[in-house]
């Protein structure tokens, strides 16, 4: 009895599954998919353009940074000396001040 019922349940579920009506896709469905495809295509095109241009951008940015560093180094070559002088003078002033207050 149990085995018979089990077979019946199996047949019932299989038949119910097989009886599922295939859905007709709406008429606009195909154009929606093609719109999605063309959107994906455009996105991948712009991504591939970017990938193609990326090494050039990197090279240009690196060159610019090197130029900026050289110019900065050249213009500010005397800055470390000036800073050292100011620091020494300040220390010297402080030393004199502390001696005067002793």
């Amino acid at each position, binding site marked *: 009895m149990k085995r018979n019922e089990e077979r019946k349940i199996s047949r019932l579920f299989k038949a119910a599954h097989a009886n599922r009506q295939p859905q007709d896709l709406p008429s606009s469905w195909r154009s929606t998919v093609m719109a*999605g495809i063309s959107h994906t295509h455009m996105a991948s095109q712009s991504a591939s353009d970017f990938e193609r241009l990326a090494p050039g951008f990197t090279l240009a940015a690196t060159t610019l940074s090197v130029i900026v560093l050289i110019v900065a180094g050249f213009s500010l070559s005397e800055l470390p000396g000036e800073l050292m002088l100011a620091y020494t003078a300040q220390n010297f002033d402080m030393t004199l001040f502390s001696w005067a207050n002793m």
Partner: protein
Amino acid sequence: MPGTPDDMTIITKVLNGDADAFRHLLDRYEAPVARLVAAHVPGNCVAEVAHDTFIRAYRSLPGYKPVRPFCNWLTTIATRSCHDFWRDRYRRREAPASDMSEDGQRFMEIALASDSVEAFESIARQHEVREILSLVLNQLSPLDRMVLTMTYLEERSVKESAEMLGISIPNVKVRSFRAKRKLRSFLKRHGIQGG
């Protein structure tokens, strides 16, 4: 079909940047994909999942290797889209596992008591059976649900199911066994002894 380019010619065109050529693949495989998807997801979601299948196929096209027919490759993508649909549904708790109503139990008793083939087949066509089946499937995890549908309801081979779902054969066997056991215990809990 005369005058229609074969799949590989269309795929080559698409890969060379002619996205419009994909329309031929859409025309050719719309019906089989919709049929496969309709076997796994609710009717009102078929268009959405079929749409997702073709967009995924387009995106994955550069990785397609013609060692297997395009149709089989697309079928695998459609199956995985259905699986992802259920995963998403379960994550959003839109497929709650609930118990069978008393009406459902009574309906099953009548169905199992019917002796003639005609009566049985007419019962199988009624929407109550589909509702009960959907209730039973909702008790399972998304992957177990896919495995049970393919191996038990559609009687696909374990190997084919494993390939379509992208999991190993032992994994399909274990999941199928576990899902059937769960199905039996669910039916038993509702007084249906054959379960």
